[in-house]
């Protein structure tokens, strides 16, 4: 097997695209776990929601799939708000297993609804940018490039939001100590709703981007969710920098190992890494306490 510098660069670019999408998924999971302390099994369905919305916009209405990105974010955020108010918020004070079962039930419900309304077959559209960008022998398609740009931009925006401003401060305060945050005058319920809403919006954007480079089925979100969980565990549950670092690590690892060995081995090694992390560093690579 000959490996040139161009090939290595190509594999890195390929890994960054997958890593970017994983980062967006993991960002939402980490935000929900960090702020609300809920493991959100329904996150995959919010990804699917964004994918179907974009399919309806691009495949149904014949508009640009890029319109699907803000629409998915806004609609996803709205759905997230409603779900937090009607379901998750109501079991927050109960034992953790209740919220776990609640998100699991929502996941099953979502899967059923998508199957009912869209059927089992996958959906796809041809609209969107075609063509590619070539630099130093490395080729990246315009769709993949768009995905990468949106992921980086959103990741940067979320980090900025968390590091500065009152909302970021409220998120971080809740992540560190819920009671102390409440005693400081932070509106706990509103902050939790905003965190969940933002996370679901990000998941829906991930779905919109997945539909741009892939296909959409009722289970498309769940395919990404499992790896999203792997990323947040390796990066550190509830840690935003950890989620992003974990996503890049897994994206690159799968791209390089997928080439050097094969995709099955890339998966096996990824899950071995998860196992080793849980054994030797259960707080994850970058997680100390609730690091946001």
């Amino acid at each position, binding site marked *: 097997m*000959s490996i040139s510098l161009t*090939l290595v660069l*190509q*594999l890195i670019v*390929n890994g960054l695209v*997958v890593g970017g999408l994983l980062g967006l998924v993991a960002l939402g999971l980490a935000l929900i776990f960090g702020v609300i302390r809920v493991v959100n099994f329904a996150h995959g369905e919010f990804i699917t929601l964004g994918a179907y919305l974009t399919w309806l916009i691009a*495949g149904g209405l014949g508009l640009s799939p890029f319109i699907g990105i803000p629409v998915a974010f806004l609609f996803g955020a709205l759905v997230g708000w409603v779900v937090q108010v009607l379901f998750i918020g109501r079991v927050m004070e109960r034992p953790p297993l209740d919220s776990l079962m609640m998100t699991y039930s929502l996941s099953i419900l979502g899967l059923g609804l998508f*199957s009912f309304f869209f*059927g*089992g*077959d*996958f959906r*796809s*559209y*041809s*609209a969107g940018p*075609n063509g*590619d960008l*070539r630099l130093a022998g490395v*080729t*990246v*398609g*315009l*769709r*993949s490039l768009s995905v990468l740009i949106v992921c980086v931009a959103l990741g940067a925006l979320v980090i900025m939001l968390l590091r500065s401003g009152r909302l970021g401060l409220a998120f971080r305060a809740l992540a560190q100590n819920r009671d102390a945050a409440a005693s400081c005058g932070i509106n706990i319920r509103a902050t939790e709703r905003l965190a969940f809403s933002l996370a679901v919006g990000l998941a829906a954007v991930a779905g919109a981007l997945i539909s741009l*480079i*892939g*296909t959409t*089925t*009722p289970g498309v979100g769940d*395919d990404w969710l499992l790896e999203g969980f792997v990323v947040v565990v390796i990066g550190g549950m509830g840690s935003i920098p950890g989620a992003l670092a974990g996503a890049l690590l897994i994206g690159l690892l*799968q*791209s390089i190992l*997928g*080439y050097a060995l*094969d*995709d*099955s081995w*890339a*998966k096996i090694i990824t899950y071995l890494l998860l196992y080793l992390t849980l054994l030797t560093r259960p707080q994850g690579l970058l997680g100390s306490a609730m690091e946001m």
Partner: protein
Amino acid sequence: MGSLSRRRFLGSAAGAGLLGIAGPRTAHSASTINIGASLSLTGRFSDSAKYVEEGYRLWEAQTNDAGGIGGSQVKVTIYDDQSNPDTGRVLAQRLIDRNGVVAILGPYSSPITDAEAVVVERAQVPLIGTIASDSSIWARRNLKWTFQAFPSSNYDHEGFIKIVKEKGEGIKKLAIIFEQSPFSIAGKDWAVSYAKKLGIPVDAYGYAPGNQDFRSIIEHIVNSGADVVSMGGYYQPSIALTRQMMERAFNPKGYQFIEASDGVTKDALGANAEGIFGRSAWEASTDTPENKAFVAAYQKKYNRKPSYHSASAYAAGQLLAAAIKAKGAKSEAIRDFIATSSVDTIMGSFKVNDKGQQTGYRYLTIQWQGGTQKIVGGNSKTAAEWPKPAWK
């Protein structure tokens, strides 16, 4: 009673009654022949399975309108297996026990056919695998009552490789991509051996079921210098592969994905569908009187063109009708007829080997040309477009 005690006899009879076990299976009454099917009317296969139902219903209506088979009307009972093999297995048992069917028309997909085979082999009721291309179902065990009635997956790449041999002078290498599932592996094995026999250099690349990321495989293919690609997996990963090849600006001279004959290929790929090859179990344009009559009847009933799913379902009905007409409505007689006879259907001339695998008709090769799919290769008058136009 011989050596059978009264208590034992009554026990056996009661047990047989409870389990719904009767003697040799025949039609319920002289005027009705009971046939059954489980179909994926809901769940992930529902979009395609509804076309199978339409094919069965059209055959049932036409047969009854023509006076039935041997004077007996046909009744096809269809249950919803929810796209679930386990449910299909339960429903096959129900069709046999409660509905007293003499034969079962196949469900949608190979996995559900595989599941139902377990039931029909035990109950000794023939099952016609209408939409079961996976020949490994028959290769890995000895099935006596289950028959494939679809072109075998072993020949998934055959038509395309013939075109590569004919048109692809000077090609460097053929890359075959396959899913690590029995049907796709069988197709790959046959294709690699066939390509080598024709003197075509060939590499094969496997991927895990469910995988949608083909970037690593594409890099391997690019680096190997292969300039012709044939994908032997399902439709969804095939679209993902095609998209990723476009994103990588990898333009093979010839490209097939076996499911490309699905009409939605154009929706998914737009103008980039041009030049892509696929294989098709059946085409509406096949020029035989029986096929034309089927297409016309279907269009009249459903107001649109039939898909291969409906054609295959209709052909399964034709096969069953031929068996009942020749040997009567008894399960064993139907089985014997199907196992040993050649029957002309709208799919072609049906025939099975001693394993129950269909060997009579094979896939047609199609290519997307000018926004529609055309039959190319074989006896077709339409020439294959070669090389494939570059991605747009």
